[in-house]
């Protein structure tokens, strides 16, 4: 678990996704309390018990590394295989950056899409390809990736993570270039942050960010009081709902 958080801090901005799966029967509320109290600097995708179809392994922690194309690259206990895991992750990040596939065109599209996060460049590269199965496959990848990026903005807003949502919306706006259909969809997403309601959420999230920063740095003794004050003054915002969840997670005794 600490090694997963360390990898996430070091490599998430380069494209690594880290998923924590609690496998001892905790529910969502228990998981949230445990993470805020024991690992407040955790940013990994975190889930409770779900069957992960990798080779059976006795004891915890254990884990798996899935490559950029969905292939299982490693499974086992992370402590003993630390060096091997780091090498495999580095190789996959390089693959994502350079693109991969049977043809130079496929590599160019995937380098733009996954390596640089540039939808416009990926779409232009696909448009230059001859019709065929490979082009259809790559167009599908662009469509799915764009749908995920767009959905992320709404999801982050609903979770009360408005600063993250704004960053995601701006990145998306930059990455779609001048593609008219995409611009028409993304422009209102970005504009929402300049609305009165959006500005209120952003202002609250800046306050909450200061409190969570103290928690992350293990200097959060005053965090519950600061959260209570914030919730009292924040009004009915998604960020205040998130602040209330964090407060409850901090105050719930761990079993």
């Amino acid at each position: 678990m600490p090694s997963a958080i360390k990898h996430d801090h070091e490599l998430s901005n380069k494209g690594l996704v880290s998923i924590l799966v609690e496998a001892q029967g905790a529910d969502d509320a228990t998981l949230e309390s445990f993470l805020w109290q024991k690992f407040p600097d955790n940013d990994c995708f975190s889930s409770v018990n779900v069957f992960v179809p990798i080779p059976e392994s006795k004891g915890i922690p254990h884990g798996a590394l899935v490559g950029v194309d969905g292939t299982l690259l490693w499974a086992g206990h992370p402590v003993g295989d630390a060096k091997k895991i780091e090498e495999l992750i580095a190789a996959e990040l390089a693959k994502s950056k350079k693109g991969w596939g049977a043809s130079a065109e496929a590599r160019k599209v995937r380098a733009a899409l996954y390596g640089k996060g540039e939808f416009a460049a990926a779409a232009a590269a696909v448009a230059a390809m001859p019709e065929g199965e490979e082009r259809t496959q790559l167009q599908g990848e662009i469509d799915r990736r764009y749908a995920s990026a767009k959905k992320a903005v709404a999801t982050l807003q609903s979770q009360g993570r408005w600063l993250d949502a704004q960053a995601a919306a701006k990145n998306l706006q930059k990455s779609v270039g001048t593609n008219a259909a995409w611009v028409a969809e993304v422009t209102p997403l970005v504009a929402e942050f300049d609305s009165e309601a959006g500005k209120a959420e952003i202002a609250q999230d800046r306050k909450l960010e200061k409190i969570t920063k103290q928690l992350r740095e293990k200097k959060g003794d005053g965090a519950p009081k600061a959260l209570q004050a914030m919730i009292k003054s924040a009004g009915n915002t998604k960020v205040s709902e998130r602040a209330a969840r964090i407060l409850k997670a901090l105050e719930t005794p761990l079993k």
Partner: protein
Amino acid sequence: MNRAPLLTSLLLALPLAAQQRAAVGDKVPEVTFPTFLNGDGRQSLSEFFGQPVMIDIWGTH
């Protein structure tokens, strides 16, 4: 025609299919995560295609 034996065989096979595990070198079957703390709306493993995914299975006890 008595379809009971066929239905029974199918039902018995279901848990095995549901528990199918990938070996190293295989494509990992789809996983749908019920909820994510710190998520961004992606719930299925396939939605992370294009990025390496490190999965850490751990416990709170």
